[in-house]
């Protein structure tokens, strides 16, 4: 995933600004990282380096924290955030197969974003509709009883919608 120079600059500025309100006590590290993610949607390497310098720890330690907790993203989220439920019910009904089909279809791994930033993939814990297991959330929308062919269908439907929207926009002009 490529991050533009512009994005890097914004990330550095945002992080510096957030850091300026905290002292260097290590207990502030996680709250700062959470705020960075709130603002940017993810925590880029440059932000981690800024934080490491501020708290006076090796950068690899900040990386360790970010990779330890599921709540942190290392890549910018896609326009469509695909969340695969890995709760017990979904797990039992083949969530890992669903995960594999998304990864294969989008050609990215869990936690990554497609190069065009259209989709990002992540795993979540039980989303509360176990009767429909296995479940996938696309943004806020719940999709139940997912099978690999339905994964293809969902992606296809999205692409159609996008095309229609584009044509609609063209007509409006």
């Amino acid at each position, binding site marked *: 995933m490529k991050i533009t120079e512009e994005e890097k600059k914004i990330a550095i500025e945002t992080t510096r600004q957030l850091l300026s309100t905290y002292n260097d006590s290590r207990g502030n590290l996680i709250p700062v990282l959470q705020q960075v993610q709130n603002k940017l949607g993810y925590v880029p*390497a440059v932000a*981690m380096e800024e934080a490491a310098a501020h708290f006076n720890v*090796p950068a*690899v330690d900040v*990386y*360790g924290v970010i*990779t330890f907790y599921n709540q942190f993203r290392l890549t910018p989220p896609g326009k469509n955030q695909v969340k695969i439920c890995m709760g017990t019910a979904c797990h039992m009904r083949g969530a890992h197969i669903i995960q594999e089909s998304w990864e294969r279809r989008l050609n990215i791994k869990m936690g990554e974003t497609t190069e065009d930033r259209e989709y990002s993939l992540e795993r979540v814990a039980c989303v509360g509709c176990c009767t429909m297991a296995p479940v996938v959330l696309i943004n806020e929308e719940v999709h139940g009883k997912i099978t690999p062919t339905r994964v293809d269908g969902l992606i296809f439907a999205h692409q159609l919608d996008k095309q229609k929207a584009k044509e609609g926009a063209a007509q409006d002009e």
Partner: protein
Amino acid sequence: MAETVTLTIDGRQIHAAQGEILLWVALDNDIYIPHLCADREEEHPTASCRLCFVEVEGRPAPVPACTLPVTEGLVVKTRSPQVDGLVAAGFELIMSNHRLDCKNCSANGNCELQRIAKTRKLRLKPKNLPVLDKNLPVDDSATTFAYDPNKCVLCGQCIRACRRSGNGTLGFARRGYLRVVTTFGDMPLGESNCTECGACVKVCPVGALAKK
């Protein structure tokens, strides 16, 4: 000058400075206790490998020797059915995701795992657990040494040595089964801020970090 105390390890009377850590006292007196994560240079033991258990008189359960300061009249046994059970279980868990390739391993003959297996009559190859190979790529990018994460036992020795050397290149990342010793952003060592001082290679108790 610290006060000297007398303690008993496996029936042997031993003199040591009050407050010294039992593990080092035992090792210095040629009593071997398995250990991977303990570090003489650190003040606070991480006590994460769970291999150094000993039986202490008056304590209901075995205690990690790397966390126990010695006191006057302390009576310890390095072996007991309970201790042996704990060590065997811990060792088997460690070996269940350690890539076994002693024949081609540079640590062969000088490996702490081999030593533990030999002194405690344990098998290197787990018999109750499947062996899971992480199958991570070997980092060959540094010029003087190579890092094979598949052999790493996550003792943290290299990380502490790396910090003491002032580089702070290595650290732990991820969680659970995916936990690894790595660099910032998983950069190859050759591209990281590693100066190849070799401190990590010197302390690695297994063959994960090895001179080329």
